[in-house]
């Protein structure tokens, strides 16, 4: 369910987080609406990872609120937010290392559909679980790798696996942390098309450095610099913004169509 008044999947209100004297997050307001891809861009060290951690639940903000699907989840654990409908992919792959690709996705499906408290039936023989997991793998194009150990996957393939596991949760909101990193030009094109099709199923907060992908996918963009959102708007607005150009984009915009 979204917040009835605003139709927002996610609202960040006045989020602040300081580490000693350093303000990693400085009064951030941000909204992600249903059916939209909201991209978060900014130079390295801007505080994107810190912000993502506060949205996902691993880090508690000093002040401010995180409202997910209409609920104030500021004090909620990572697991509880995931159960509410938040899916997440990691910038540095965070997978069940000893399991195969398929088992990783099966775990995600299990988490959504059945939970942890089954003690008797062997999970690997659960046909429904396998079928659904294979279906998700098929969507991201990893079917051929299903039985391979995760360690054998390339960077890009691990990214796709992360996306697959997030999708297996059937989330309402996807938090994607640099999903394109490590993908070659072909892979980037495919993933970009995939995410564009996904938009109707769930909203996305997309952290990305790949500007082509950002401009192709984003409905709205927020620019984070030194923990502050210095600009937020449509692709055209951001590209036109002098403040953004000055702070961040610089040469990226010159010569771009």
């Amino acid at each position, binding site marked *: 369910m979204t917040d009835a008044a605003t139709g927002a999947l996610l609202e960040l209100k006045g989020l602040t987080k300081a580490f000693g004297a350093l303000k990693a997050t400085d009064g951030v307001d941000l909204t992600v609406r249903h059916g939209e891809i909201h991209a978060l861009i900014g130079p390295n060290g801007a505080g994107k990872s810190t912000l993502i951690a506060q949205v*996902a*639940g*691993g880090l508690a903000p000093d002040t401010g609120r995180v409202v997910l699907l209409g609920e104030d989840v500021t004090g909620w*654990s*990572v*697991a*509880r937010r*995931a*159960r509410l409908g938040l899916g*997440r992919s*990691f910038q540095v792959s*965070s*997978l*069940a*290392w*000893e*399991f*195969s690709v*398929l*088992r990783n996705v*099966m*775990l*995600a499906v*299990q*988490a*959504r559909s*059945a*939970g*942890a*408290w*089954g*003690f*008797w*039936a*062997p*999970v*690997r023989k659960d046909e429904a679980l396998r079928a659904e997991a294979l279906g998700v793998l098929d969507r991201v194009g990893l079917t051929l790798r299903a*039985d391979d150990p995760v360690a054998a996957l390339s960077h890009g393939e691990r990214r796709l696996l992360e996306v697959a*596991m997030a999708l297996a*949760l059937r989330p309402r909101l996807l938090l994607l942390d640099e999903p394109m990193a490590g993908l070659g030009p072909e892979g980037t094109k495919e993933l970009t098309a995939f995410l564009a099709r996904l938009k109707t199923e769930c909203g996305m907060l997309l952290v990305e450095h790949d500007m082509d992908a950002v401009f192709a996918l984003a409905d709205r963009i927020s620019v984070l610099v030194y923990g502050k959102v210095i600009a937020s708007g449509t692709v055209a607005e951001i590209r036109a913004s002098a403040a953004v150009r000055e702070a961040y984009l610089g040469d990226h915009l010159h010569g771009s169509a």
Partner: protein
Amino acid sequence: MSREALVNALLALALLGAPLIAAAQDEPFYVALASRVAILALAGVGLNFALGTGGMVSFGHAAFFGLGGYVAGVAALHAFEGSPFFAWPFEIGGSESMVVIWLVALAVSALAALAIGAGSLRTSGVYFIMITLAFAQMIYYLAVSLPAYGGEDGLSIYIRSTLPLVDSDDPLTFFLVCYALLLLALFLVHRLVDSRFGAALQCARMNPLRLATLGIAPFPVKLAAFTFSAMLTGLAGALYAELNGFVSPAMLSWHRSGEIIVFVILGGVGRLFGPVAGAALFILLEAFVGGWTDRWQLVLGGILLAVVLFARGGVIGLLAGKARHD
């Protein structure tokens, strides 16, 4: 049949066959030795579930082993003396029934594990190791300070508790009881590891953040696994005390915790029959090398060091290759 299943079957048969042969040859010493292997293996199966499957490096599992032992000792003492364990608000006396002792040992271990786990499972790494060690030390010092139950000198168990239909005093019968319990524990652990709970627990070991990101909180899963693990080790403790006719604070010492970890590792951490192989190796070293030289601990230390540095998979790893998770 996979190589590992074959190795497991052979180990199970060897553990059964040796005492049967020994009994036929009228060598009760070796039957008792086999009982020791089965009991320590059971203790190790418990620890292996927490440590190998769950990734919880508990340096305090001797607490549960010793608590189980003291349940057996205290029950026997009160039964022998006819005195109540406590008298208010209702009287609870001792017991001569083995099954009752088992049930109480399971319950006591479970309660202790819930308490210790609640206090320590939010930490990880070296803090977890130290806190589990600390809790075990506390229980150790508690046992040392209870003069009613022998204090530092421990408690003798004069009469073995009874089982319906069989003579529990007979060494071979007692071995078969321990062996049956060991097989039951192995079966339960096998089912658990393959279940949804097992998948979640293994993920809690490999990558707790990933598990949480999928919507399953690691803490309750680990606590449940820790508790079940403690129950198995506690049951083993009760059997051990009955086998030796004696329980003392030494069963609670951190050295004992270390020993259990050692033979779980020697056997192959995380492997189903690892504790069986490890306990057998440990007892055989103690009995045979120890009979030949007082320096058997030197040999044990050397083997352990070699395993840790070079043969991480332990005995099962050497015999059956790397573990397969799919």
